[in-house]
């Protein structure tokens, strides 16, 4: 499952999509909207926008690269768009692998790669009334 969605993410459906016989370890990452920005401003909420078709294609590329490196894996990546409140799920990455170490490594790399290159953007809105486009470190 690779998707960008304006509606709240059902993390359990994302996780369920990678379950399969022979995949003994499943690692799921949930990223939430935090109440403090990286530079410690009080966040009121945020908005994500995406180039949807390119974002989904990028998720598929990330998964293909991980399978190239780690062998057999099942990967799901879903990212929210639109307006989100503090505490809402922004992104879910689920990876199933035959063994746990690969599942941990691949899941961590998937979210790193997503942050690096997926065409998704975040505008944070602060309690002081300001807002700002936040870019990930390259």
């Amino acid at each position: 499952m690779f998707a960008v969605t304006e509606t709240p993410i059902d993390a359990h459906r994302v996780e369920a999509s990678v379950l399969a016989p022979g995949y003994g370890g499943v690692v799921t990452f949930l990223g939430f909207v935090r109440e403090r920005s990286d530079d410690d401003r009080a966040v009121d909420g945020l908005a994500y926008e995406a180039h949807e078709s390119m974002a989904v294609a990028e998720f598929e590329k990330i998964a293909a690269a991980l399978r190239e490196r780690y062998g057999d894996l099942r990967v799901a990546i879903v990212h929210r768009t639109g307006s989100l409140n503090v505490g809402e799920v922004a992104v879910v990455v689920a990876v199933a692998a035959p063994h746990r170490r690969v599942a941990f490594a691949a899941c961590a790399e998937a979210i790193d790669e997503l942050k690096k290159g997926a065409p998704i953007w975040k505008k944070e809105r602060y309690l002081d009334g300001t807002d700002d486009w936040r870019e990930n470190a390259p």
Partner: protein
Amino acid sequence: MTVRVLAFARVREILGSNDSTLTLNDGARVSDAWAAVVERAPALAPLARSTRVARNGEIVSGEEPLQDGDELALLPPSGGG
């Protein structure tokens, strides 16, 4: 030729449109399209280095030649996750 320009995030806000059309001379390249966009919104000039451009869904360099009907996407640095 005409190309479609999709803009996102900071670039979209400065350009004032997420979806617009550019008319370019035949033989134009991605760098010519970017120059035309900056002419329309000069405040974009400082973002040239950090903005990637995709042609029909694939990231390309400024040298990439364009064809009538292409879709260009102007992609600032990612902020997802």
